[in-house]
């Protein structure tokens, strides 16, 4: 569904990505794991059009990806950025409306909001509150709900568990599975390698902008190198 070929990106002299290639299949959860600064977020920003790669191509559903971010969103790819980036001065409901920006019909937007409230009842309780007043976990839920408002075919999730309490992390991963069950392809970027790999159908390990390992989630979970570098050797359960 999405194929990334030989993608390279630099910020000035700093190389963020070199020759990154991988392919995401329709309906799967594809995880990208790696340490801070490995280039995970840069990769997602390339896919959603916020930065232009210097080299390489991205194909989406067999066609070259559109150039501008709003066209990429219209094509069915939605990006939940790192740090949630909800619109803090807008209310929860307005944030959801913002997520359905490309939907014309008002009644359709209302229907989709109700749909999200079913998945995230907490958001309904807070619909008229300013999004900035929500807790970290609620903000993450809002960011995901906002992204789902556009009914994407592919959702890019950047560190959805970052800075959240363990219980909330569990909830976030439960929702990621739920999203996949609804037929949405998930491209997941995570530092929480163990969780991300155990969910993933396929995964890659990114290190200093280079793909070090590729495999199914299970393979990488049992890989000795990955275990030592990302899973904390000796703590497997």
């Amino acid at each position: 569904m999405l194929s990334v070929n030989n993608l390279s990106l630099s910020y000035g002299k700093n190389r963020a990505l070199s020759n990154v290639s991988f392919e995401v299949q329709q309906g799967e959860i594809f995880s990208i794991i790696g340490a801070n600064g490995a280039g995970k977020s840069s990769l997602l920003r390339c896919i959603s059009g916020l930065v232009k790669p210097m080299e390489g191509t991205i194909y989406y559903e067999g066609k070259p990806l559109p150039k501008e971010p709003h066209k990429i969103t219209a094509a069915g790819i939605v990006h939940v950025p790192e740090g949630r980036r909800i619109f803090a001065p807008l209310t929860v409901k307005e944030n959801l409306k913002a997520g359905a920006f490309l939907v014309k019909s008002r009644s359709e937007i209302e229907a989709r909001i109700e749909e999200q409230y079913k998945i995230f009842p907490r958001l309904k309780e807070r619909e008229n509150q300013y999004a900035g007043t929500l807790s970290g976990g609620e903000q993450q839920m809002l960011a995901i709900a906002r992204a789902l408002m556009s009914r994407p075919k592919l959702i890019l999730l950047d560190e959805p568990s970052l800075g959240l309490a363990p219980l909330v992390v569990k909830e976030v991963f439960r929702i990621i599975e739920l999203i996949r069950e609804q037929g949405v392809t998930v491209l997941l970027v995570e530092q929480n390698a163990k969780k991300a790999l155990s969910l993933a159908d396929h995964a890659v390990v990114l290190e200093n902008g280079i793909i070090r390992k590729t495999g199914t989630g299970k393979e990488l979970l049992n890989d000795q190198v990955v275990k030592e570098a990302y899973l904390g050797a000796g703590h497997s359960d």
Partner: protein
Amino acid sequence: MVLFYVQQLINGVSRGAVYALIAVGFALIFSVLKFSNFAHGGLISVAAYAGYYFSTKFDFPPVIAILCTALIGAVMGIILNYIAFYNLQRRNSPNIFYFVSSITCGILFMNILTLMFGTTFYAIKPFFKNNIIKIGNLIILKMDIMILALTFVLLAALMLLINRTKMGLALRMVSIDKDTAMLMGVNSSVVITVTFSIAGALAGISGILLGANFTIDPFLGNMVVKGFIASVIGGLGSLPGAIIGAILLGVMEVIFTVLVGDILSPAIIFVMTLIFLLIRPQGISGHFVTEKA
């Protein structure tokens, strides 16, 4: 004596109404692009001359003249964006570039006008034949009533646009977080173009109104400083704040001019603004607006 101050209050509010138009155009650009657009003054100057042509040379009725000037302002706003800021947006240039570019363009516009028209003063033909309404001993100018009404209608329409329409939502999204707005499917260059056309139309209307109230010279647009002060007092980037700041500024100017005279009053107002900002640096509206890094 009370009557005297009521009279001054009326004068002050109507002066503030014009400042409000300037300040809102200024604040609108600030809220979306996070820089102080001093080229707004250049647009006001251009609009004042356009207004002179429409109302005095071509003898259009006031309403038509104002509409035409607004249109010229909107077009100029879009052109300004393309010549001065479009490339900066594309390259993600730092904030200071926008600032320099805007000042440069403002000066450029005013100097082109100087070349074309010289520094002679032009006067717009009065909008009303009999400009004065007397209520007891109070004197109210029809022009002032028109300015107040026009300002009110325009700002109400702008608030409706921002809070009730899809374009308004896009505008708010871009002003909060441009990247994320783009991820939601907002075409930010369209939003920015629309913002410049609205701000330009407001500059156009303030230009012709200033021209009708004062006399026109190429540097009339330096009145943008009033709009700047008003929006700083109100809280940069906040539209309601800019309106309140502008009315406050207008009233203070008129009252201090009466109390201490024409020369000292701007000095006192600057000092008061500084003291106010020391106490409340975020302005009346109370939000800090961070400048784009």
